[in-house]
């Protein structure tokens, strides 16, 4: 699969573009991690000689379902209902998409023994050869049937032609003991479909496989999406600070791509509107925030912020934030999330960290402010830190956004960069893609979490934690940076890698976790970290 796909690549890329595009490619493509499975090989199709970096597959294999799945289900559903709709809605290339996806799915089925879902391995190769569409449908229905205890059978109509994407209707057969009126049958069919989709989403979100029950899975999904959005925000903050100057010949490349892309309609229409975002004033930016976050929780907070324009000096702004806004917003948040959660020890360490971070703070007036907020958090003292850790993150991320909105709405004033909220930011490595299996290297995930923490600390002077949910994390040497606290939960273990290349060259530096030229670092939690030296 790989050489064929590679052959399709260079014919329009490196031939036309020359040097500039190779550079872009080096930015974009990552070194193919061959040998995992053909699915990831598909993802790394850009030719390996130009391959460097951006598209590096650092996600573990088992979290990569075929990306075509959601659209396949969509296609199949639409096809099952309205055949004309299906044909009208999809470009003519969709036949090949379906065949591609079915073959991809077959590959994954073959090469993912650790997948939690029972794939009918024996049936799939034979099936997919004949008619991609109906075969895939049967496969999926078999999966649904096997994984679902209810006795409901959905059989695709065999009358569909080979390679066609239209299934005129779906036969539904009820098993013994089931009600047979059409209403409950239809209901069951719908529920099956929803459950099938939830299963796919479960595969997509890391750490979701073990959870059963739709409510928890949805919780995890929501948290994951929020975490990803926060990561985007972090990264954009860092990008704003770095102010990159990238001097590619971008226009030529984009023009060439325009010629070869399908969605011509949207491109020209949409590139101009990006630019007015630059010189927009504060209010518009507030609306943008509402656009992207869209969380109802945020909106009343922001509208309230707009109405209080009296935050001029740093001191008064921070103090009034604490007194008026803090209580109001905190009450709101507390009412929404019932259990709030800081152990006394945690708060104390928080306070210590914040106080020590304050010594490097520029504005001395913040000390009183910070003490008062920390004192307030003290009185919230709560016990449970177990499952509520991700809610902790959620709360903290919400509270992170609150001061951001505060500062945002008063762009005329010159508020201090150091945010009034000194709550420690806690990032879970699960959100960064760590698998916690102990068999796959989670180095990049953990290191990314540490990097984000460090940037939060350096940009905002707030202490930051990297949280390790229970599990075994296999990793190479981790480099701690300033301001990062590793919080390893009780049943989590960090395992040092057993390969020599995991560690830096000098033997004195063979540590699993190393902190060089870093301050305000720490490791806490109660978990373990083993170097496994005997296995080297």
């Amino acid at each position, binding site marked *: *699969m790989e050489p*064929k796909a590679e052959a399709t690549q260079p014919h329009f890329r490196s031939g036309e573009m020359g040097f500039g595009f190779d550079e*872009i490619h080096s*930015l*974009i493509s990552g070194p193919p991690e061959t040998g995992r499975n053909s699915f990831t090989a598909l*993802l790394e*199709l850009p030719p390996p000689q130009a391959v460097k*970096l951006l*598209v*590096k597959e650092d*996600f573990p294999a088992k979290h990569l379902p075929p*990306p*075509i*799945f*959601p*659209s396949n289900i969509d296609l199949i559903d639409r096809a099952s209902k309205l055949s004309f709709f299906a044909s009208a809605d999809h470009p003519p290339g*969709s036949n090949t*998409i379906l065949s*591609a996806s079915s*073959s991809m799915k077959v590959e994954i089925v073959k090469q993912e023994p650790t997948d939690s879902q029972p794939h009918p391995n024996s049936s799939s190769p034979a099936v997919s050869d004949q008619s991609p569409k109906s075969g895939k449908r049967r496969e999926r229905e078999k999966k649904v049937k096997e994984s679902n205890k209810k006795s409901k059978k959905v059989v695709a109509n065999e009358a569909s032609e080979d390679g066609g994407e239209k299934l005129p209707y779906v036969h539904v057969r009820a098993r013994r003991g089931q009600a047979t009126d059409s209403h409950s049958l239809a209901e069951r069919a*719908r*529920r099956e*479909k*929803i459950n099938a989709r939830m299963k796919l989403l479960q595969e*997509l979100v890391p750490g979701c496989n073990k959870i059963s029950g*739709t*409510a928890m899975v949805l919780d995890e*999904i*929501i948290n*994951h*999406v929020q975490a*990803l*959005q926060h990561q*985007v*925000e972090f990264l*954009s903050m860092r990008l*704003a*600070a*770095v*102010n990159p*100057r*990238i001097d590619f010949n*971008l*226009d030529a490349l*984009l023009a060439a791509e325009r010629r070869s*892309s399908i*969605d011509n309609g*949207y491109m020209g229409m*949409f590139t101009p*509107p*990006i630019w007015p975002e*630059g010189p*927009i004033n*504060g209010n518009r930016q507030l609306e*943008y925030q509402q*656009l992207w976050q*869209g*969380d109802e929780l945020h909106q009343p907070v922001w509208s309230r912020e707009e109405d209080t324009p009296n935050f001029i000096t740093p001191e008064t702004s921070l103090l009034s934030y604490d007194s008026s806004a803090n209580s109001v917003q905190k009450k709101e948040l507390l009412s929404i999330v019932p259990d709030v959660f800081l152990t006394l020890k945690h708060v104390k360490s928080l306070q210590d960290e914040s106080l020590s971070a304050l010594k490097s703070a520029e504005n001395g007036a913040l000390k009183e402010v910070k003490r008062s907020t920390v004192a307030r958090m003290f009185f919230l003292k709560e016990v449970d830190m177990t499952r509520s850790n991700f809610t902790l993150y959620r709360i903290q991320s919400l509270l992170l956004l609150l001061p951001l909105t505060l500062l945002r709405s008063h*762009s005329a004033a*010159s508020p201090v960069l150091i945010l009034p909220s000194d709550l420690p930011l806690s990032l879970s490595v699960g959100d960064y893609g760590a698998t916690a299996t102990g068999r796959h290297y989670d180095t990049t995930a953990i290191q990314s979490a540490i990097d984000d923490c460090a940037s939060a600390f350096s940009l905002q002077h707030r202490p930051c934690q990297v949280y390790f949910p229970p599990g075994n994390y296999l990793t190479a040497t981790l480099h701690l940076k300033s301001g990062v606290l590793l919080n390893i939960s009780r049943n989590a273990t960090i395992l040092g890698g057993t390969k020599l290349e995991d560690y830096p060259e000098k033997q004195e530096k063979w540590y699993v976790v190393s902190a060089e030229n870093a301050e305000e670092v720490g490791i806490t939690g109660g978990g373990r970290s083993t170097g496994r030296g005997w296995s080297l």
Partner: protein
Amino acid sequence: MKIAKNPHTNPTSIKTRFALRFLRAINKLSNDNGTSPRPLNSADRRKRCRAIRAASYASMASAVGPNKAWSRAVLRKIRNRTKEMIKPRTRRGAARGSMNPRKELGLGQEKELRELVPGGEAMDFRRLLNETGHYIQCLRAQVQVMRKILHYSST
């Protein structure tokens, strides 16, 4: 069998397109801001941060194309925003699509998911799950590309 790469579903090509557009966006932003090299500790930096974030979402939506409901919603919002900057518009409530009552789960998670995924208000639950899956993948790709860009521009 030859695999046809549909640019709308193949993540590699989406990453490429996103990277190109996003880099172009950043370049234009930094050219527009022009002379001030590093707006330290000021509101300009916040503005820049917000602009970059909006640009990243916009580039991702355009890289994905109009096939997905969430990308359409994002692009529609951008176009409406630019129109609205020209003339003010009255606030309208979002249209609520039909919700599947059987799958109404506790604690309003479905509602929260709808708010998170752009364009999620006007879909039924099944379609919402589809869109969420694709949205998660694209967000992941976005984060990866941004991280790499950051890495390379700071070294």
